[in-house]
């Protein structure tokens, strides 16, 4: 049996018995799975909240038709309260509509009649409710204006010469996938975070414990030692990533996305494709983390450096947030960015072509080779063995 197999066996056994590392490795997939389950629930809850907007109106007897229109649109009209400005600041009410005394006069004279809608502009929670009330008042104002024009035999089109008809050409899946915009980054971060504890332990931890020197006295080459440790890290990270992706599958399946009026198909086949694309990234990440861990002066340093590598999956995620669209060929040649773009496409329903998967996997494997070679060279240095 090749000797590196024994290193893999030993490292996996050692990692499995390291309760703290394993708990840390599983913590992130569980937290992300709960997020995937919780975020759609939160959005549904917020939407349900928005259906019951309460609007106090001061002087509602002055605008009875608008009050009726608002009530028809699901707004609950209540009596005004004293000192409304303070009430908004104290968060007793979200907003108040104040009808000036001269409103009926101005309205009848067909001048511009002003209504005052008081709210706290810094409060993001009430922004959607305020926008909805404003929108309804605007719509009532426009239809009233149109009726006035019709009674004068003037086409309402005079007041609205141009109308923009917004047509959505993207698939329902792509629209719905926006709710899972975080998913590609979650999956990459699971792959980056799963091995932090065990990789640091098997490289700089081994040196700090002074067990690296006895290991290297055995008749096994430095490259086999590095390869064995790398393969063990890949096995551990792949298993944790598989658990993470499976949890995502079940959590997204159970989340109430349909209640938002969205149709999102995230079947097991899509998660399987994501997992297949993830494996070369895991190879790359493990080699990079192992290299960094051997480079670090101590176990603590190694954990800090490896944690910094966590920024890597965030950068493409942010780029794709501001430059979203279907994956482009050049992106496949950029490590991490290519797979992230493919994940976005898979979640969005566009899928990933075999060519793109092959290119991005090839790039990840080339990066793995470079990190591996650098790691072996590092391991051959006396300074690396003895610190």
């Amino acid at each position, binding site marked *: 049996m090749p000797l590196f197999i*024994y290193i893999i066996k*030993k490292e996996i*056994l*050692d990692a499995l018995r390291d309760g703290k590392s394993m708990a840390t490795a599983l913590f992130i997939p569980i937290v992300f799975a709960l997020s995937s389950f919780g975020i759609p629930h939160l959005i549904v809850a917020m939407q349900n909240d928005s259906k019951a907007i309460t609007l106090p109106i001061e002087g509602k007897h002055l605008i009875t038709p608008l009050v009726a229109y608002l009530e028809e649109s699901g707004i609950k009209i209540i009596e005004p309260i004293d000192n409304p400005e303070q009430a908004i600041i104290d968060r007793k009410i979200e907003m108040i509509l104040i009808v000036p005394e001269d409103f009926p006069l101005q309205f009848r004279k067909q001048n511009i009649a002003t209504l005052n809608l008081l709210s706290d502009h810094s409060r993001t929670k009430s922004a959607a409710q305020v926008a909805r009330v404003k929108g309804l008042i605007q719509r009532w104002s426009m239809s009233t204006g149109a009726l006035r024009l019709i009674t004068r035999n003037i086409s309402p089109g005079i007041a609205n010469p141009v109308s923009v008809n917004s047509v959505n050409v993207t698939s329902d899946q792509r629209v719905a996938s926006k709710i899972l915009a975080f998913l590609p980054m979650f999956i990459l971060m699971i792959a980056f975070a799963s091995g932090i504890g065990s990789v640091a332990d098997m490289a700089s931890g081994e040196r700090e414990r*002074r067990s690296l020197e*006895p290991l290297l*006295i*055995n008749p096994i080459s430095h490259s086999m030692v590095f390869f064995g440790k790398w393969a063990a890290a890949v096995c551990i990270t792949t298993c944790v990533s598989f658990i993470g992706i499976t949890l995502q599958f079940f959590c997204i399946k159970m989340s109430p996305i349909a209640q938002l009026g969205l149709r999102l198909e995230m079947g097991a086949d899509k998660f399987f494709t994501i997992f297949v694309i993830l494996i070369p990234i895991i190879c790359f990440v493990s080699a990079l983390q192992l290299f960094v861990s051997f480079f670090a002066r101590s176990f603590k340093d190694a954990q800090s450096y490896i944690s910094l590598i966590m920024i890597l999956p965030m950068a493409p995620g942010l780029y794709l947030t501001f430059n979203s669209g279907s994956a482009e060929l050049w992106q496949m040649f950029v490590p991490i960015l290519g797979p992230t773009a493919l994940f976005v496409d898979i979640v969005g329903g566009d899928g990933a072509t075999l060519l793109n998967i092959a290119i991005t996997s090839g790039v990840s494997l080339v990066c793995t080779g470079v990190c591996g070679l650098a790691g072996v060279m590092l391991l051959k240095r*006396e300074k690396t*063995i003895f610190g």
Partner: protein
Amino acid sequence: MIQVSNLGKTFGKITAVDHVSFSAQRGEIFGLLGPNGAGKTSTLRMIYGVFRPSSGEVTIDGVPVHKETLKAQKRLGVLPDGGSLYKRLTARENIRYFGELHGMSKQAIHLSIEKLSDILGMDNIIDRRTAGFSQGERMKVNLARAIVHNPDYVLLDEPTNGLDVITTRAVRKLLLNLKAEGKCVIFSSHLMHEVANLCDNVGIIASGRMVVQGNIEEIKSGANAETLEDAFVHYAYGNEANALQE
């Protein structure tokens, strides 16, 4: 035979080992003595192939260590200074791991562990995880791990340091067994009585140089000393020791 010829090692401007030469045969226990920082550990590290010499050469049965490191390491069993165990593995798993890395079969590893466990008195700890082991228990497992593959040459860096009487006896018994089996043992130590009782030949290193080597009697008579300790002080500290005594 282990042949060390003109071995040198420098770290930047510091010379740790300076043209050290000696040889050790099968069936011989060779003691390497020297004060702290004299270059004993650096010399041993070059012999077992983790340090690359700045000059000179080491051969084991004619195999040059730094050209054919893995081939040479197959012949070696090494207990490095301060070498540590995997604390989440049991003593048996620690020993088995090194046996596997030497390409031993499962059966051979099993038999070897049973034999070493018996010699070193490890029956009560062999299936316990090594976290929390005493220094003596750790040393026993380290020793067993170093020689599980029944090597022809055994290098031990301060094997009896900090051990209690019983463990020291077990180590002494093991070294004598190895000698009786025709193995070559090189060990470094600070303990003069240990060296005087066990070693056939001794080399004293001071400031990176081999200042004297030979059998115990030769070394004592060369320094005109009654004990090995006096001879060691004479060779290792020279005038400095005389000045301190005055």
